[in-house]
């Protein structure tokens, strides 16, 4: 019986990796955005935190775009 164990391992690793990357980045983005947009808006930490948040969200969008690319064949 030709059960494709290799494929099963591949699917497991790929979906685990992608999910963790997206969820961690999105969570970091929310944490950073919240810090940047807090009451101490003009403090020194605001700028870099905001940039970090935007980078995190952009990375999530890129992964989502890759997902759509996979959904749409050719």
């Amino acid at each position, binding site marked *: 019986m030709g*059960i494709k164990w290799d494929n099963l391992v591949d*699917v497991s690793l790929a979906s685990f990796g992608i999910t963790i990357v997206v969820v961690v980045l*999105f969570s970091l983005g929310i944490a950073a955005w919240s810090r940047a947009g807090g009451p101490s808006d003009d403090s020194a930490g605001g700028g870099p935190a905001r940039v970090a948040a935007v980078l995190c969200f952009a990375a999530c969008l890129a992964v989502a775009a890759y*997902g*759509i690319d996979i959904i749409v064949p050719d």
Partner: protein
Amino acid sequence: MESISFLLIAVILTALAFDFTNGFHDTANSMATSIATGALKPRVAVAVAGVLNLAGAFLSTKVAATISNGLVNDSKVSLVMIFAGLVGAILWNLTTWLFGLPSSSSHALFGGLIGAVWVGAGGSAIRFTQLVEKIVIPAIASPILACGVALVATYLAYKITQRTAKRKVNKGFRAGQVGSASLVALAHGTNDAQKTMGVITLALISTGILAHGSQPPWWVVLSAGLAISLGTYVGGWRIIRTMGKGLTDIQAPQGFAAETTATAVILASSHLGFALSTTQVCTGGILGSGLGRKLAKVRWGIAGRIAVSWVLTLPAAAAAGGVSAWVADQGDLGVAIVAGVAVAAAVGFYVLSRRRPVNPDNVNEVPSRERELAGPSTV
């Protein structure tokens, strides 16, 4: 010739009816958690899912792999068997919908066809090793995988945002959920609408209307896409309630983690040629997101009922498909009787569902009776 065209029309209509039940059965997959967390209003959520399912049906240009998927010997499949298999799948889909259970529509379709072919052409036409490899193994592996991935993802999401204001965390993850839920709906449209297109195209090819190896004609793509998106829009509110509120209490970070998991698992597996059930992946993801959050309640009684329905889906749909095949094989009158019974059953299920209706307005309320039925919840 006349009997062929009567049968062909019956097959096409039944296939579209199955596609409709597939749509409203599976709305919950993409939208249950978004509705439960308030990321999307119930009616907006089903509209988005419906549109994306229609878009998904058109996006995918490749013909769905033959519905039989190598499970049955294609050369022995007749129109009567396809018709009977579809009826069996519809009957099981409606039964599980009445009980609010998220069972796999694909398994119902495969089960119905297997039962019909078994009765019509004998057990030798079923490829049992293929059955184990293509259905049983993924059915066991995929929910466990989704559950594990969602568990870790949910844990990390709460860990990372634990110092951030709850209000902002919820707002952020709700926005993210709109995106993650939409991707699930799109992926669903490219997968499940294709199955019905494959059934109808196969029926057209087997009657000689289309040449072998033809692409589905535009009207098949359009009608299959419309049937599944209409079903999605009508919304299986009973199943949405079970998945969004019954299994566990979903918060926005959990919903985001569960949906991202579902998208990743579905895309990774379809990319690498592993067929699996969207429904089982999504249910596993939601269960995992419940286990990954501290103090989240997982109602194991409901999880158990869902698991039982998964085990029953293939044999039950096969039994219904087999009986239908036996009756329908008696000629046009038999086909008419099966069709009549199917319509009567559908009306009966609808009437039964009105006794305890679930709709967009009460979808997020879990009745106290349900809680008692579910048994004591564990932390």
